């Protein structure tokens, strides 16, 4: 709130800038008064809600429902009316395997490769992400000088676009990159990291942790700071050991917050795409091909695109996400935290 000087005359610059907006708004006002008079407050509520609901209905709800229709049709045509009904064939195709433990024995072997890769990715990434974020949050919650500086350090990559993240690391991991230079200075052989199946997989895990851990660190840190200080002081008076304080006070009180974070990380990990697509493009081979990229390539990118199959796969992924989201809502209800979506 600005301290207005009494007796001030004339228009300020911001008021001047508002003049056209005011004009436009009063222009809209006349027809809306009519709406209000004719349809009452309920009518106005509908009016205010309508643009959002319309956009939301067309671009979220409608696609959600016709996705089921897509998954029941075949062919390469894009528009639903042009497509032939095939029932559950697409699902049958996805699940057509000679040996369920071996992706190569499946008709859609790339789908199962993507599922397997995503599974491993989720397990590794979520574990490491939670571990790193938790340790970082615990450290940031200590009696630190310049805490907000250190917090900013870990938060920095969160705002970077996935494309930028992918390119930064592609540049660092390439043959003449910084990593090889570092290893070279210590006498190690340079290695083309992203041409190696194992290392490129590890790179996608590492890079995605690098890019997002600052975000989860913040949420966990907020949870840590919500724990009353006097509990720690009481523990100190009792002479409790550090490890015991962590296990008996910090961890139990942080648990609700931590569970929400775990599910959030899970939901995001299942959908991993952007930075990996730029970093490895799913390669080498199919070693870093994840589900979203499989859906994208099946639906759009390949020569023989199959939107029906992509829709079927996306619905299977949707089921997983719905379960996870419900889990999150169930977990977050007591602590009143909201979920997030871009």
């Amino acid at each position, binding site marked *: *709130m*600005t*301290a*207005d*000087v*009494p*007796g*001030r005359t004339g228009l300020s610059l911001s008021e001047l800038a508002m003049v056209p907006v005011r004009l436009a708004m009063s222009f809209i006002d006349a027809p809306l008064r009519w709406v209000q008079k004719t349809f009452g407050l309920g009518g106005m509520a509908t009016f205010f809600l309508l643009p959002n609901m319309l956009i939301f209905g067309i671009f979220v709800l409608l696609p959600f429902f016709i996705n089921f229709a897509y998954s029941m049709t075949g062919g390469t045509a894009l528009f639903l009316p042009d497509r032939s009904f095939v029932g559950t064939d697409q699902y049958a195709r996805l699940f057509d395997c000679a040996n369920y433990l071996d992706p190569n024995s499946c008709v859609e072997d790339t789908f199962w490769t993507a599922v397997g890769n995503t599974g491993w990715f989720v397990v590794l990434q979520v574990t490491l992400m939670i571990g790193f974020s938790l340790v970082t949050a615990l450290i940031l919650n200590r009696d630190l000088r310049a805490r907000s500086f250190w917090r900013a350090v870990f938060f920095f990559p969160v705002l970077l676009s996935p494309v930028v993240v992918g390119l930064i690391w592609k540049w660092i991991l390439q043959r003449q990159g910084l990593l090889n230079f570092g290893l070279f200075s210590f006498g190690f052989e340079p290695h083309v990291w992203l041409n190696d199946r194992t290392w490129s997989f590890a790179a996608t895990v590492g890079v995605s942790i690098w890019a997002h851990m600052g975000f989860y660190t913040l949420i966990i840190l907020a949870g840590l700071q919500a724990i009353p200080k006097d509990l720690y002081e009481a523990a100190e008076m009792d002479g409790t050991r550090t490890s015991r304080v962590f296990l008996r006070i910090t961890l139990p009180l942080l648990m609700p917050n931590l569970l929400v974070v775990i599910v959030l990380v899970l939901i995001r990990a299942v959908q991993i795409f952007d930075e990996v697509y730029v970093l490895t493009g799913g390669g080498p081979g199919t070693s870093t091909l994840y589900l979203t990229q499989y859906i994208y390539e099946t639906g759009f990118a390949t020569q023989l695109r199959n939107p029906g199959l992509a829709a079927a796969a996306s619905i299977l992924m949707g089921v997983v996400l719905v379960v996870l989201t419900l889990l999150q809502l169930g977990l977050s209800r007591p602590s009143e935290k909201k979920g997030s979506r871009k």
Partner: protein
Amino acid sequence: MGHIKLTNVAKSFGSIDVLHEINLEIADSEFVVFVGPSGCGKSTLLRIIAGLEKPTGGELAIDGKVVNSVPAADRGLAMVFQSYALYPHMSVRQNLAFGLENTKMPTAEITERIGEAARMLEIERYLDRRPGQLSGGQRQRVAIGRAIVRRPVAFLLDEPLSNLDAELRGSTRAEIAALHSRLSATMIYVTHDQVEAMTLADRIVVLRAGRIEQIGTPMELYNSPTNRFVAGFIGSPHMNFLEGTVESSSSGKAVATFAGGHRLDLPVDDASVATGSRVTLGVRPQHVSIGTGTEGISAKIKLVEALGSETIVHTDVAGQKILVVAPGQHDLAPGADIRLSLSAAPLHLFNEKGLRLEHAL
């Protein structure tokens, strides 16, 4: 101008009835106060008159025109809210002008009205400040000013003093009274504070649980409350009540015994007081006097609050609390036995249902 009539107005939220069949007529330029404990429906009644709530039954007329379906903005009323509800992002001047601009009033007239109201309320110096930079009392004036500039048919005031400290409350109360006589506009004022009601009102409407308990001038309510609730609600400290039993009753004359063995002849008009029925005797603390000798009701002193100008004595009469407000200073100690005299006191009698019994005591 400013004649408001409510006929069988009712309001329910879902299955909960907040107001039952309210009938009330408010004359032009009258100052009417709605008073009652919290949750009695007085604010809802005011909001129905304002047009901010729709009644679920009955009829509301302003100056002879039924306004049930007229939106709040077009009823010609102005309201002062409990929280003042000043627009925090606008200066005082803009706050006052907002409602006038919405009626497409010429700028010159807006300026003139704001100037006039500001002079009246002595807020000229603050016109370019934001509400956040004002004290509670100043905000309260601005809120009243916002109502004044509208030149409404009637002012609706919803507990306007409840956010002020005690001292300011007293002076602002006096200003509102002065404002009413100056503007001679209809004012409807909601409060839970019976002192405000007594000092401001031409007529008081006492509400309880969505029903009108009594309508009358402050003195009518004070001197002849129609039931036990009104008797207890109006007046400070609260009226004392003594439970008693009718011993004998015959043709216009009954005798009752009250706690502490006090016997009283009840010259009751109607014969509804049957032998054995219970009655309540009400007497205001100011009307009880500390007796001398052995006359009166015997009581034990529990607590003495000496205020200098008067002394409040908490006594116990056979397990019932009786409060005495005695003018001046008295040398009394807790634990002592005293006699209370009702001989000079106006007494109120209520039957089993709490209704007033007319009598000639």
